[in-house]
């Protein structure tokens, strides 16, 4: 029958499109083989600063972004007067579509010096005994890169969360008020109601932040070290690849960069799985 045939064509098309994704991963693996052949597991040891930097920056950025995005979506839905709600929503979506290099330069030239002389100085002076803040503040650092990254992914995550949050039926609000609880509890319960969606939104936003190259490249300092202090300079895998790819002469160098990209992919996978497991544990 004709409709059956059409269905099978659709099916084939879908398989083709999704297999593209697998092909990318397979080609990454194939391109990395020379590097793994040569270095063995020592590859992770020699590129450890980049791997460490990626993990540190993404975790810190996600933590900050969680707070910022949930906060801003609650603010827009619950507190902004109806008349100017549209303005804020448009502003939010505009920020989400900004070219990220603009965030990078803004972070380097404006936010960086400001934070350096205020927040970072405070953290170093009073909390310097914690290894996390043990180096003197510099113009660029893990923390600056994480903050810029968090600010970059917040509008995206916030708009996703806001969409779901605003769809929660009003009957839920009324029910909670009927129990005698206040607005704080209303918000708290509504947020936990959509916790799964928030996790999904943050995962998507995290995916965007993990591969972020230019903004991080400008604000992290590109020094090939792994420091326990957030106020120190460092490097991430995307920044390293962006810097080295153009001048990777030999097959081995190119292959090492591809293997780093594979590592990046695996890190992302681990984080997403961890996030899902964490959520199901809570349930």
């Amino acid at each position, binding site marked *: 029958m004709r409709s059956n045939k059409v269905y099978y064509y659709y099916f084939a098309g879908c398989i083709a499109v999704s297999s593209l994704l697998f092909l990318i991963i397979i080609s990454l693996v194939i391109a990395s083989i020379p590097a793994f052949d040569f270095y063995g597991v020592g590859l992770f040891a020699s590129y450890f600063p980049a791997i460490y930097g990626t993990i540190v920056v993404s975790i810190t950025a996600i933590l900050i972004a969680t707070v910022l995005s949930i906060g801003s979506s609650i603010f827009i839905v619950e507190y902004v007067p109806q008349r100017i709600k549209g303005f804020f929503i448009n502003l939010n979506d505009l920020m989400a579509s900004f070219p990220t290099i603009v965030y990078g330069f803004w972070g*380097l030239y404006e936010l960086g010096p400001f934070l350096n002389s205020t927040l970072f100085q405070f953290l170093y002076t009073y909390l310097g005994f914690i290894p996390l803040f043990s180096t003197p503040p*510099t*113009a660029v650092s893990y923390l600056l890169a994480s903050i810029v990254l968090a600010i970059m992914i917040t509008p995206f995550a916030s708009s996703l969360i806001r969409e779901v949050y605003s769809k929660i039926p009003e009957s839920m609000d009324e029910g909670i008020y009927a129990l005698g609880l206040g607005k704080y509890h209303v918000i708290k319960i509504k947020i936990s109601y959509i916790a799964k969606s928030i996790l999904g939104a943050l995962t998507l936003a995290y995916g965007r932040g993990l591969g972020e190259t230019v903004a991080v490249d*400008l604000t992290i300092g590109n020094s*090939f070290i792994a420091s326990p202090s957030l106020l120190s300079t460092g490097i991430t895998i995307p920044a390293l690849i962006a810097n080295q790819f*153009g*001048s990777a*002469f030999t097959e081995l160098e190119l292959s090492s960069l591809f293997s780093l990209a594979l590592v990046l992919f695996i890190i992302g996978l681990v984080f997403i799985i961890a996030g899902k497991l964490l959520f199901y544990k809570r349930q």
Partner: protein
Amino acid sequence: MAKRLALSKLVIGTTIVAIVIVGALLYTVYNNMTGNNPSGSKINLNSINVSIIMGGSTFINPQMQAWIQKFSSKFPNILVTYQSVGSGAGANNFISGTYDVGATDAPMPTELWQKATALKGSVITIPDIVGSEAIIFNIPGFDPSKNGNLNLTASILARIYLGQISYWDDPSIKSLNPGFNFPHQKITAVHRSDGSGTTFVFTVWLYLTSIEWKTSGVGYGYTVNWPVDKLGGLGGKGNEGVTAYVKQTEFSIGYVEVQYAIANNLETAAIENPSGKFVLPNSNSISLALLSLDITKFPQPTQDWSNITALLLNSQDPNSYPIVTFSYLVIQKNYSDLNKAAGIYAFLNYIFTEGQSNGNIVTGYLPLPTNVQNYVLNEIKLISYNSQPVYQLISS
């Protein structure tokens, strides 16, 4: 019935004629675009349409953009673009074919030159400008008009980038600069994060001039493992990135092509030369370094040039600046596309004739000495189309 037959004959006939006409048009357009010149007649530079993609060194970027602007007002039909991506990427992209012309601050290393020659037939290495590397710094309160120049030696710079000197009030810096009271502040050393010819020249100079660097094992190259990273050294992308970091960061130091220091109003340090004098990079001190140039040391145009990086470093003239270098262009010698070969020849001819005159050289760069200019003009005569020298095929 007869009408239908006639109609179908008409349709077929028209189709055939159309195909023939379109085919002929495409053939001439194709020939025009790729510059196939079966007849061997001379071509007019003003009538060809070609795009030439160049890229590489950030060192030469300001000068290259100025040249391109002037050239395109003469020949708007020859579109030249230059991407400032770093010498390493420039060499790589030239080999892969992305760039028609690669620009590098150091001649390509031997393995790359071999790869390029194997892939493209002969390649010609062309010195295109003289530039120098300035040491820029950001010390709040330091004013050269009041405190004198910041005097530095290769030994001090080596120890800074090795992480052995970490504070500005180190005795070795203070003893050379008694006119300023250095605070006890950490030195933030800025280097390049990408594959850079500027780094190559800087590290070669350190390797040749400072025993600390030579024995450290760091070596020289487009990228090196900077020991100072452990103390908070920063990597900037391109000369632009290093300049931005030094401008932004107090008590920092970095190495850039001198034009970037001039354009951004950054002070440069006076570096000790082999005669023991501390010299600032300016057109005088740089041109004095050129006097000792021995052009007979140039390799053949299509040979490996990687041994002559140090040709202009540490010149013996007492007032010369020690970190002076050529920047280089690398091109394929033989082309199968006449328009491309002609366009490249036209642009390079412009650079090495009008482009070397005083009004066309950007501040901070120096024109090639006359003997080098003549040498280069002979080099570009080697550019050939199907083994015929291109300059003989250009009519204008």
